[in-house]
């Protein structure tokens, strides 16, 4: 579990690499700054209140955790290693969940890159990670009504990825597209990123991190279940990559590595909800479909005149939904009834996230503005907000 915590932490480097790799050089410092902020602030916020909000012993039981009971400080008795049936300690649990929490904001970060105001984004992070994410989490993982009711989401296709994805969708809508992303006639333009090797490294790191994400979500050291989870996770990732590669080769007649990479991520998100329920064959199918969905999703987002530089919506929202529904279609819990439950769960979480993200972002927009000035955007955010460059001394030979 502690190792998994480390791996999930490391995913933040993966996200950072992916995001800076797929965006322009002039905004690199800004993106790094956002990501470093997210993990620091996310951990502290989760410590201050998020964890207790998320695992409150919801139904009025006298659980060992109850929000009002603690204020800021976690209980010292949580350190008893007997916590959680001996598998891990309260502390490990907190840290593992805390590393997750920040992920929701990281997803948004990618989608709004290259145009959002730093301060507005930091404010949004504080509210969304500090408040909305734990509330949704409590509904399911905190034994809230979704859990009671039979909704299944193993490691967070909905609870983590869709929560981030919905907010990304709202944010992208409210922000508008980057300068130059669409022509006056509305034709989407390519805005290539500046460092594809780092983006690829990001994908490798994320895949590794998912071992911790899904492996750790078993929340026990049961080797049978954990190892199955790792196998389904890896096979889905591989199948997702191959799926996206094949489809984009057919559609666009080139071997686009960024699609391949997004397909891998799509496969990972897709398997997340049911990683412990699927047979390997089913994992391959889920991953493969996820890879196709990523490619189609990216095209769809462009068609809708939304601008998502890194494909976050396609990867995290589209496949978050797909993965959640897949639990009702494939694997140990597949049934019409379960599919319906999954569908309703997706809908409730979606409605809540869209609404709350909209309220937060719209308020910030009114109060502070969401977007940097046009000049600042063209010049790059690094110069204006940070007075720095990403490669200040880079010289050619």
């Amino acid at each position: 579990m502690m190792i998994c915590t480390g791996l999930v932490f490391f995913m933040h480097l993966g996200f950072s690499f992916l995001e800076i790799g797929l965006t322009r050089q002039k905004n690199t410092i800004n993106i790094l700054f956002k990501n470093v902020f997210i993990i620091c602030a996310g951990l502290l916020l989760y410590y201050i209140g998020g964890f207790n909000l998320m695992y409150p012993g919801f139904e009025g039981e006298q659980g060992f955790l109850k929000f009002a009971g603690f204020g800021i400080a976690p209980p010292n008795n949580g350190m008893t290693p007997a916590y959680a049936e001996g598998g891990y300690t309260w502390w490990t649990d907190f840290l593992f969940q805390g590393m997750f929490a920040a992920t929701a904001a990281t997803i948004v970060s990618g989608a709004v890159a290259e145009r959002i105001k730093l301060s507005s984004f930091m404010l949004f992070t504080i509210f969304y990670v500090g408040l909305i994410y734990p509330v949704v989490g409590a509904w399911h993982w905190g034994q809230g009504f979704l859990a009671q009711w039979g909704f299944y989401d193993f490691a967070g296709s909905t609870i983590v990825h869709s929560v981030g994805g919905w907010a990304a969708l709202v944010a992208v809508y409210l922000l508008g597209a980057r300068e130059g992303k669409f022509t006056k006639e509305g034709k989407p333009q390519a805005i290539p990123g500046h460092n594809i090797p780092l983006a690829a490294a990001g994908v490798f790191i994320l895949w590794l991190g998912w071992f911790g994400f899904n492996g750790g979500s078993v929340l026990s050291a049961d080797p049978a279940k954990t190892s199955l989870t790792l196998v389904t996770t890896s096979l889905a990732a591989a199948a997702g990559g191959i799926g996206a590669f094949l489809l984009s080769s057919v559609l666009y007649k080139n071997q686009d590595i960024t699609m391949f990479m997004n397909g891998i991520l799509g496969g990972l998100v897709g398997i997340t909800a049911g990683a412990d329920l699927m047979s390997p064959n089913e994992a391959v199918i889920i991953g493969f479909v996820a890879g196709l969905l990523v490619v189609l999703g990216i095209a769809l987002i462009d068609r809708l005149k939304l601008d998502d530089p890194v494909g976050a919506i396609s990867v995290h929202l589209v496949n978050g939904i797909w993965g959640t529904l897949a639990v009702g279609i494939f694997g140990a819990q597949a049934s019409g009834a379960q599919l319906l439950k999954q569908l309703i769960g997706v809908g409730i979480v979606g409605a809540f996230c869209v609404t709350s993200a909209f309220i937060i972002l719209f308020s910030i927009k009114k109060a502070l503005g969401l977007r940097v000035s046009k000049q600042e955007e063209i010049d790059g955010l690094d110069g204006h907000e940070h007075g720095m460059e990403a490669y200040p001394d880079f010289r050619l030979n």
Partner: protein
Amino acid sequence: MKKIEAIIRRSKYEAVKEALQAKGILFFSYWEVTGIGHEKKGHVYRGISYSTSDIERRCLSIIVNDEFEEAAIEAILEAAKTGEVGDGKIFVYEVKEAYRIRTGEKGGETLN
């Protein structure tokens, strides 16, 4: 003295360099430029195909004494040619004076 500015395909650089050397033109400077011309290059990025006329090129700046002008141009015209659109251009300018920093001397002999 003349300045011969040749904007060529990067992939033809080695050939041009050799051709110049064969004519006894050994010294020059170069840097990378982006050229906007007739040539277009197709790209696909995340599902969006686009064609750009911003093509990477190499710009050679060769200062020669007048008697080498013709030889230099001939060498480049030959070595840099593929016959496809986008082979590049040569521009010729007058140079007023040249100095060698190491010695402080000036004039045509600084070019060798």
